[in-house]
């Protein structure tokens, strides 16, 4: 128990969802302060893996640790230090930007002083629409607001699921800047995307998922071309 130099350690993690094995015997280690990009086709298990590391799913078999805390026993300690930005922003459309942040601050155990909330909005370029309902935001703006909810908390591990979706080039640059900033501050980043490119090149390591299995886990320069364009798995028989 307690912190270690390894941010995430998974040992033969398998997860059964319904009757499908969404993850099969995944084993990997992520060093603190590094960034790992998860790539793979839709349905490969990227989202499931991120949700499992975020403790939203319990492993069916296998063990794992995040920041030294066991996935099975100390899930709450993990949630305290981990933030997940899922493909859907988890924003409440009827609440305005400030209120969404206030809610996230209350739930995340962060002090809710207005100046702090505004600073977070300013950081993502949304302070001019602080009183606007989230449902009126463009999808790019919603992504920014979702980022703001993460920025407010002091997180050691950040999990991003398809962060580039629906962003323009400014937005994409913003995501990359945040990732750099988090890493510079000693944080660890796990990023899932089916879009290759800059993120993959800048990552410390790339994990290629196919049909729930870890096909390859290596540095970006060690990737084979086939990894970046995997063929869909044809069911046997």
């Amino acid at each position, binding site marked *: 128990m307690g912190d270690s130099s390894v941010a995430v350690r998974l040992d033969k993690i398998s997860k059964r969802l319904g009757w499908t094995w969404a993850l099969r015997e995944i084993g990997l280690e992520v060093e603190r302060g590094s960034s790992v990009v998860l790539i793979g086709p839709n349905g490969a298990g990227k989202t499931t893996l991120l*949700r499992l590391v*975020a403790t*939203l*799913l*319990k492993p069916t078999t296998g063990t794992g640790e995040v920041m030294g805390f066991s996935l099975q026993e100390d899930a*709450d*300690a993990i*949630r*305290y230090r981990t*933030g*997940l930005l*899922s493909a*859907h*922003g*988890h*924003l*409440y*459309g*009827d*609440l305005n930007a400030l*209120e969404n942040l206030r*809610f996230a601050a*209350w*739930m*995340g*155990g*962060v*002090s809710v002083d207005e100046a702090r909330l505004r600073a977070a909005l300013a950081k993502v370029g949304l302070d001019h629409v602080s009183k606007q*309902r989230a449902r009126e935001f463009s999808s790019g703006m919603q992504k920014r607001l979702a980022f703001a909810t993460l920025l407010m908390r002091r997180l050691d591990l950040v999990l991003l699921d398809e962060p580039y979706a629906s962003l323009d080039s400014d937005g994409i640059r913003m995501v990359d800047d945040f990732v750099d900033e988090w890493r510079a501050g000693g944080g660890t980043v796990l990023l899932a995307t089916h879009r290759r490119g800059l993120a993959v090149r800048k990552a410390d390591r790339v994990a290629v998922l196919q049909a729930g299995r870890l096909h390859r886990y290596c540095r970006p320069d060690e990737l084979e071309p086939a990894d970046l364009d995997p063929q869909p798995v044809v069911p046997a028989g």
Partner: protein
Amino acid sequence: MKSSLALRTWAILWKDLLIELRTKQSFSAMVFFAALVLFLFGFAIGPDTATLSRLGGGLLWIAIAFTGMLSLGRTFQSEEVAGGLDGLRMYPGEIRAIYLGKLLANFSMLVVLEVVLVPVAAVLLQLEPWGRFPLFVGITLLGTFGFSVIGTFYASLTQHLRARELMLPLLLFPALVPVFLGAVNGTTLALAGDPLDRIGGWIRLLISFDIIFFVVCVWIYPLVLEE
């Protein structure tokens, strides 16, 4: 600093009530639905005011139960629209805060509904709660709380089931029988002035139900959300 259970419960309660406030249409729809149920009863039973008045307690609670049933799932539906309960489950701290926050939100909304509905029922069904008003209010609150305790629990459980509009009443109504009997009989006695002072037993029943199921539901709740 991790948020305390109280703070998280408050945050969820605040959020759900704020969302409800912003979508005013659904609340007025609730009120009109309840009033419609009362009207239907009037048509079904006939305009004999003596009968309607005698049955008034029961009719009022049927209207509250049906309307409540339709509104119980709303706080969970708003989570689904926002991308699912993952959002709430991601935060550190006691997961039961989700249940407590939504329980209080449902309870508050039902109480507000009742504040509007009781005068309407009083007019349509010739009810006179003014005689033993504190008792009437007490019974209503106890009954509403019991309804909210088990209603919120089952609303959460059925959220991801197919045919959830059918599953919620199917599961909820057998469990609600004691609350319903207690509320209806307590209300009827309170309205009639309770000359033989028999309301005590019903109050005790409601309190026992509320406490027992509050403890059981709060305790079991994490198992409902587990994945």
